[in-house]
Each structure stands twice: as structure tokens, then as C-alpha cells.
């Protein structure tokens, strides 16, 4: 059978029967549109997280926190095991290849902060002056502290914009003296607003002070809550993280087979976790969309049966001029596939349009995924092919003489 010549006539037949063809398309259109929305939104969310992490300088860096297993959020200095030390960080900087900046972090949550009669509660971050090189920390006014303040354990503070508003209202915080747990600090900088971190933490309500100051004058502990390591080669992040972990196990004298007393995290890995989460969601919604396509398939099948009974004369004629049963099957199956693939294409366009519209309205980003779009159209076509088989076989089984009678 000459397929193209057959389908050219079929296409005209299908476009002439608008209602029937529209219903067949509708069968797959809704499922495909839903699937497209889900995928576009998922892609958008992934792209957004990526962009945020990129902006915060999270890539190409390794984060080490004390305590094994999976811990979430930023542990407070009194709540984490005292296993990660300044010497550990120094050893990593010295002995692990391709390590650039190493920043030390000590965080304590829920500290009382006062300015005059105004008071608030916030997190205090004791960090080395190189911290902004590992985590984007833009200063709107004033400046971040430097090596000199770190060395002298100076009582200086850089405060987040929300913290500033809580303490100072509209007044100028620069050069003012605030009290953190009753220890006086001079405000030397105010951060620019950044919103939330990829993990959901508020980046605008916190206070940075030199790590030495935090350790000696405020927290009175030596251990760290976090060590940040810049890796000089982006493709060596995982390898470097592994070497740092090996070094720490050695230094902490952890016997083989025993669990780590620290956790090493890399942003690329965190992204993997996020992707896995969104993949679970996508899978679930895809199954729903798949079910709707199954229902759509039955619709396609039933409309095809109507079509077959209405086109008995055509079938009879084709048989009379020499079409074999399998030629009739091929024609009807391809017709169904053609219609559902077209329905799938419309569904994709509709889905993409609604995803972007919803994105615009809800502030949720949407992104195109070409493989997903191609896959959706192919899948819609496959639904037609599969569900078209039974009606097509029914058409082929018609006796030519009976069919010609109409």
C-alpha cells in the first residue's frame, strides 16, 4: 500500500468530519496538556533553584558540617557535636589539592539583640572575612569586616536589612552600637536584601561578626558549625570533597567501617536531592496524566468504531479494488495515530501556554523541555495507534460485499 497517498485522502476525510475528529483529539489533548503543565513547571522550578544557587555562589564549593547522618538547616553552635575544629579546616586548606578559600563559620540562633529600647532575636554568624567569597553576601551600606578585625577579635557587626529595620526603624544603623547578649558591637555594614536561600532560610535577618570575636567574646566555644571550601576546578568538586572527608576521618581517627562524625555536602548533590524530589512529584502526576490518556484512548477507540461503521462503503470499495485486510488495518490505525498526535501537539501548546500564564500569575517560573514535548506528542500518537487497532481490525473483518452495500 502506498501510505502517503492513502493518508492524504484520509487527512481530508478527517478534517471534513470536524466534530468526530475534535472529540478524538480531545481524548488525548487534556492528558497531554496536564502533563505539559506539570513538566514545564517542574523544569521551571529546577531552573529557578539552579539560578538561585548559582547567584549565591554555591557551586564549586564544599560545605562540611559537624555530626554524621543527614542534618537539615544550619545547626546552632550549642546543638552540634564539637567535632569540627579550626585545625581541621587549616589541615584541609594545607593538605588537600585544588582548595582555594576556606571559610570558618560559627552560627548561634535565637540571640537577644538590643539597640536602646528596641530589641529583637536573631541568628549571629561568626565568619572569617573571606566568607563573602564563598557565599554571595552583598553589603548595601558600609563594609564587611576584614582580616584585621578577625585577628583582633573586634566587636564589629554587619547586620541584615530586616534586622536593621527591627532595631533602627528608618534611622541609620551605621556607627551605632548594638548589644548582642549584652556585649556591645559597632555596626559597620548593612547587607542588601537577598530573600530566601534555596533551602528556605531567611538571608535578610542575621548578623555577621568576625569568627574570632564570636568564638572568644560571645559563644565561648572553639568548635565550628560549618567549614566552607572553594574548589579551584569545578569538575573536581566531588573528588575534592572526598579527599577532604578522607583527611577528616584520619584526623578524627575514625576506624574503617565506622560512620563519619561530620557531613560533607556539595551543592551539585543538593540539587540532585531537589531533582529527585521533583522527579517523584513529576512521576506521580505523570501517572495521573497517563490514566487520563488511557481514558482518552477508550474515547478514541469508540469514536473510531463509529467512524468505521459510517465508512463501510469506503471500506468495501477499497477492498473491491484490491486492498488487503492489513491495508485497511494500517490505514485506520495510522489515521487514529495522526489524529491523536495532532491532539497531542495542540495539548502541548495549550499546556505550555497555561504553564507560562500560571507562572506569570502565581510568580512560579515555567521552562520548556523539548524532549518532554516531543515525547508527549509521540506518546499521544502511540495512544491512537494502540487504541486504533481494535476498530481498524473490525473494519478489516467486514465482508467486502456487506461493506459495499453500506
Amino acid at each position: 500500500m502506498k501510505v502517503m497517498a492513502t493518508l492524504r485522502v484520509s487527512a481530508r476525510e478527517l478534517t471534513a468530519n470536524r466534530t468526530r475528529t475534535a472529540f478524538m483529539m480531545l481524548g488525548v489533548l487534556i492528558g497531554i496538556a496536564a502533563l505539559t503543565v506539570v513538566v514545564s513547571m517542574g523544569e521551571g522550578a529546577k531552573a529557578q533553584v539552579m539560578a538561585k544557587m548559582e547567584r549565591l555562589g554555591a557551586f564549586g564549593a564544599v560545605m562540611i558540617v559537624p555530626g554524621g547522618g543527614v542534618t537539615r538547616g544550619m545547626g546552632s553552635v550549642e546543638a552540634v557535636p564539637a567535632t569540627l575544629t579550626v585545625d581541621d579546616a587549616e589541615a584541609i586548606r594545607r593538605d588537600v589539592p585544588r582548595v582555594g578559600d576556606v571559610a570558618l563559620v560559627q552560627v548561634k540562633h535565637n540571640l537577644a539583640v538590643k539597640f536602646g529600647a528596641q530589641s529583637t532575636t536573631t541568628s549571629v554568624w561568626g565568619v572569617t572575612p573571606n566568607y563573602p567569597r564563598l557565599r554571595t553576601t552583598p553589603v548595601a551600606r558600609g563594609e564587611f569586616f576584614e582580616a584585621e578585625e578577625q585577628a583582633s577579635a573586634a566587636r564589629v557587626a554587619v547586620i541584615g536589612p530586616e534586622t536593621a529595620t527591627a532595631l533602627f526603624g528608618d534611622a541609620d544603623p551605621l556607627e551605632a552600637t548594638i548589644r548582642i547578649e549584652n556585649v556591645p558591637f559597632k555596626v559597620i555594614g548593612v547587607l542588601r536584601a537577598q530573600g530566601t536561600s534555596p533551602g528556605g532560610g531567611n538571608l535578610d535577618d542575621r548578623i555577621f561578626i568576625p569568627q574570632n570575636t564570636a568564638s572568644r567574646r560571645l559563644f565561648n566555644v572553639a568548635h565550628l558549625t560549618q567549614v566552607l571550601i572553594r574548589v579551584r576546578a569545578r569538575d573536581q568538586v566531588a573528588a575534592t570533597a572526598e579527599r577532604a572527608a578522607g583527611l577528616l576521618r584520619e584526623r578524627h581517627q575514625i576506624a574503617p567501617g565506622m560512620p563519619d562524625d561530620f557531613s560533607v555536602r556539595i551543592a551539585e548533590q543538593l540539587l540532585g536531592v531537589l531533582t529527585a524530589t521533583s522527579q517523584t512529584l513529576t512521576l506521580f502526576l505523570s501517572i495521573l496524566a497517563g490514566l487520563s490518556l488511557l481514558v482518552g484512548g477508550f474515547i478514541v477507540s469508540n469514536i473510531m468504531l463509529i467512524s468505521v461503521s459510517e465508512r463501510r462503503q469506503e471500506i468495501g470499495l477499497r477492498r473491491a479494488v484490491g486492498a488487503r485486510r492489513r491495508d485497511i488495518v494500517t490505514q485506520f490505525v495510522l489515521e487514529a495515530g495522526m489524529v491523536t498526535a495532532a491532539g497531542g501537539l495542540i495539548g502541548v501548546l495549550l499546556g505550555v501556554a497555561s504553564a507560562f500564564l500560571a507562572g506569570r500569575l502565581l510568580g512560579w517560573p515555567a521552562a520548556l523541555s523539548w524532549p518532554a514535548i516531543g515525547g508527549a506528542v509521540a506518546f499521544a500518537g502511540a495512544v491512537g495507534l494502540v487504541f486504533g487497532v481494535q476498530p481498524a481490525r473490525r473494519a478489516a473483518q467486514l465482508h467486502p460485499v456487506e461493506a459495499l452495500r453500506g
Partner: protein
Amino acid sequence: MIRMQGVQKIYDTGAVRVQALRDVSLHVRRGELVALMGPSGCGKSTLMNIMGCLDAPTAGSYALDGAEVAGLDDDALSAIRNRKIGFVFQSFNLLPRATALENVMLPLIYGDWSEVREKAERALAAVGLADRSHHRPTQLSGGQQQRVAIARALVTDPLILMADEPTGNLDSASSEEIMALFERFHGEGRTIVLVTHAPEIARYAERIVRLKDGLIVGDEPAVATAAAAAGAQP
């Protein structure tokens, strides 16, 4: 060309058992124009369907072009219809969405045919519709539609042309036009089997086979019958 021996056809629907053909033996030679006549229900359409390999006989033998047809499978019968037989129907049976040319091309879509377009254009020209090749059936008169159908039947250059009441849906002027075409093709040496109940159509035939209740009750040269038919009319 066609050699049937003791052909029977029984329709058995379980509840009803109809013997459409009882015992038909018939020999049609190459180049003949034969008319099958008889009242409705006499079995002439059944006979034509079997001759045209659209249907298989329940019993008996049927040799077409020297080869036995009874017992062939569906694909083989399809191939025979495609290569050796051309059908013309009472209601034209054109595809409404296809152009005249596409309708004529239809048999060439099935089977291993080459120069599909050229063959179809020649067949359309042979029925005088070269200038209508891109018209849809709805844009053509009844007579023109039937001419397209005849072009479609002849496009494969078949051994036999089978026409079932080809003028049944046409006015007398168009009927004469169509019959003139059949005469011309007959003159060119084609074998044509014509099913009709109309004597004025049958008179174009050189031989008339009469059926009644599934049996052949008359088989004679047309001249005599035409005269008899003329004599019977007031």
C-alpha cells in the same frame, strides 16, 4: 476466461438458510460482452460477486484466466481483484473527499504499481474527463461520476470489467453515454460482464444470461433477445 462449474452459494445465518445460487455452470470467453439478467433476488448479484472474487462459492469450481480461484485465501483474492478485475457500481462509490484523479488512482495504491499518476491521467482521458481531474465528485454530474468510476475500473488494465447496474442511478441521456463507453471498450477487445434488469441496457450485450431462483434459465445471443424484447414492448 471465466469457467464456472456447479457453483453454489448458500447464505446460512443460523436462523435462515438461503440458497442464492443452486448450480451454475457458465463459460465466458475473452472479449465477450455478457449481460446477466433476471428479477431481483434471482442471484445475479451473487454470481457477479463470485465472478469478481468479492465472495467465495460454497461449492463448485471457478477458474479465472485458467487458474482455480475457489479456496484461495483473502490476500490472494484481494490481489486478483486488484490486478484482474475492474468494478463499476450502480452508486458510483467514489470517495467524496478525493479528486477525480485520486479516485482513479485508488486501485494503484494497493499492490505493486508504478507510474501511478500517469496511468490515472490516461484512464481519465480515455473516458473524456482529462479536464476534470481535480474536481471532487460533488462537482461532477452523475454521468461524469460514473465515467470516473469506469476510469478507476480500467486504470489497472483488468482482464474483466464487472458492472453492476451501471446506469441504475442515471437519466437516459447519461445512460446512453455510459453504454457507448462500454461498447467502445468492448470493441477494443475487453471482456465485460454487465448485471442489469433493464432490457434497453441488455441490448448492448452480444449474449444474455438469464437467471431465476439461483439457476441459469436462459443463455442466448443478444440479437434474438433484443428482438424479442422489442416485440414484447407495445
